[in-house]
């Protein structure tokens, strides 16, 4: 038991000197579009630094930004007298060579956190957003202005990975008091041309296939059925014509005996009359 406890105690010892937390991206509820092409929105360091060290003094926090590269492990944010560095965006080529100071603000007190649920209230939203968020790359003008004094926070480069670090500054001595870890690399957004969107619908929907194939088949059946019906009726009409011809020949043989006439037109009229008569008879029979 004893060695385990010592190991644990020793393990905690170095951590108590520096915070083992890292800057986080803001909640997606607050920033739907994060990271953007040129900005990354972070949460301010709420209760990240050990509260027991802090009195009522308002501490200052510096935010350092650096492009993600192999040298991030050796990146220093304080000089050898323990003062925080003040390098700017231009001096470090946008964080490529070394971290630069992107923002500096008063450490939010752990006691008075903004109530994030109240952000829906229009009268409070501006206050809550500024208390909760820090936008890296927000200031598009300071880098263009040669007379600009203070911390410049110019837009980041698109499609580039950045790392961030919060550093706590003691207000009375100006020394670096504490710092977070470097954050995980966060990549700025990349814009792609709309012409590259593939609009091919891909696989056809099942419904379309069902409708098309079934309907085509049905039309085919109908056409075949129609053709069959017409042909069949012609054939049967032809055969019935033959039958009626035979009948008429028979009746012609009979009729001249009765009426002494041999005109073919007359006989056909006669036949129609007899057919009509037959119809009348049959309908009477049905009744």
């Amino acid at each position: 038991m004893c060695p385990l406890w010592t190991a644990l105690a020793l393990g905690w010892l170095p951590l108590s000197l520096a915070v083992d937390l890292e800057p986080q991206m803001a909640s997606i509820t607050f920033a739907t579009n994060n990271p953007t092409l040129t900005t990354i929105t972070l949460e301010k360091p709420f209760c990240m630094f050990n509260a027991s060290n802090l009195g009522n003094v308002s501490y200052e926090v510096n935010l350092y930004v650096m492009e993600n590269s192999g040298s991030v492990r050796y990146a220093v944010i304080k000089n050898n007298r323990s003062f925080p560095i003040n390098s700017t965006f231009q001096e470090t080529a946008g964080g490529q060579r070394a971290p630069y100071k992107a923002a500096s603000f008063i450490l939010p007190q752990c006691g008075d956190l903004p109530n994030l649920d109240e952000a829906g209230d229009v009268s409070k939203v501006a206050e809550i957003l500024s208390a909760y968020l820090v936008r890296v790359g927000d200031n598009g003008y300071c880098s263009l202005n040669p007379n600009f004094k203070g911390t410049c926070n110019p837009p980041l480069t698109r499609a580039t990975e950045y790392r961030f670090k919060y550093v706590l500054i003691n207000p009375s001595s100006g020394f670096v008091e504490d710092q977070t870890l470097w954050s995980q690399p966060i990549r700025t957004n990349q814009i792609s041309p709309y012409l590259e969107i593939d609009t091919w619908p891909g696989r056809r929907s099942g419904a379309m296939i069902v409708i098309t194939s079934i309907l085509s088949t049905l039309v085919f059946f109908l056409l075949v059925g129609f053709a069959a019906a017409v042909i069949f009726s012609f054939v049967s009409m032809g055969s019935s014509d033959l039958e009626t011809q035979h009948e008429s020949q028979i009746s012609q043989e009979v009729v001249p005996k009765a009426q002494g006439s041999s005109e073919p037109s007359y006989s056909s009229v006669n036949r129609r009359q007899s057919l009509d008569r037959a119809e009348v008879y049959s309908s009477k029979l049905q009744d």
Partner: protein
Amino acid sequence: EKGSPTVVGLLVLGNIIILMSGLALFAETVWVTADQYRVYPLLGVSGKDDVFAGAWIAIFTGFSFFVVASFGIGAVLCHSRGMLLTYLLLMLIVYVFECASSITSYTHRDYVVSNPALITKQMLTYYNAPTSQGQELTRFWDRVMIEQQCCGTSGPLDWVNFTSAFREATPEVVFPWPPLCCRRDANFNPLNEDGCRLGHQDYLFTKGCFEHIGHAIDSYTWGISWFGFAILMWTLPVMLLAMYYYTIL
């Protein structure tokens, strides 16, 4: 055996159903062409408006079904071969047209709403573009985004992840998405412009409009294609029976 009463009865019943559903199809496709959801510009701009072409054909065929089926009832009751042959011919023509309407409509629905890519691309190409098509589509999207409380096709990030005519005019730092994506108060002022620009969910419509558009086009297509399909399925046996009746007449 001239026209057994069962066959005649079935034919009359079948044709009554056809003529009634023909009228219903007519009415429904009139509703479609009236375009209550007002999505026509969306289809018209990219030339995929044959969903509506299907509807116009179905107006014609719906009414034709009504007329021809009425005629068919007469033909069956008169036991007239000539009338029945005319009925069959006309019905066959109407049948083919109705098939065309059904298939066209559904095929073009697939082009437009089987995935959001086409509508997204079209939105990015034309929204804010200084052409007449651009104006038409800009009006369409403005109206839909306000009425449906949505933004972009799949969401506001459509405007951010792709270049667009809108992006050329408005850099992302100025406004990442059209200001009509911002939630507004009763007087139509944005609730909070900064919150909207940042993308806070209480100040920005985070839902995409594709659901609404897809729903509109789907309901049109259902009316034209599936209802037409159902009528055709019913018409087939009736016509086959009429053909049989024609052969025995």
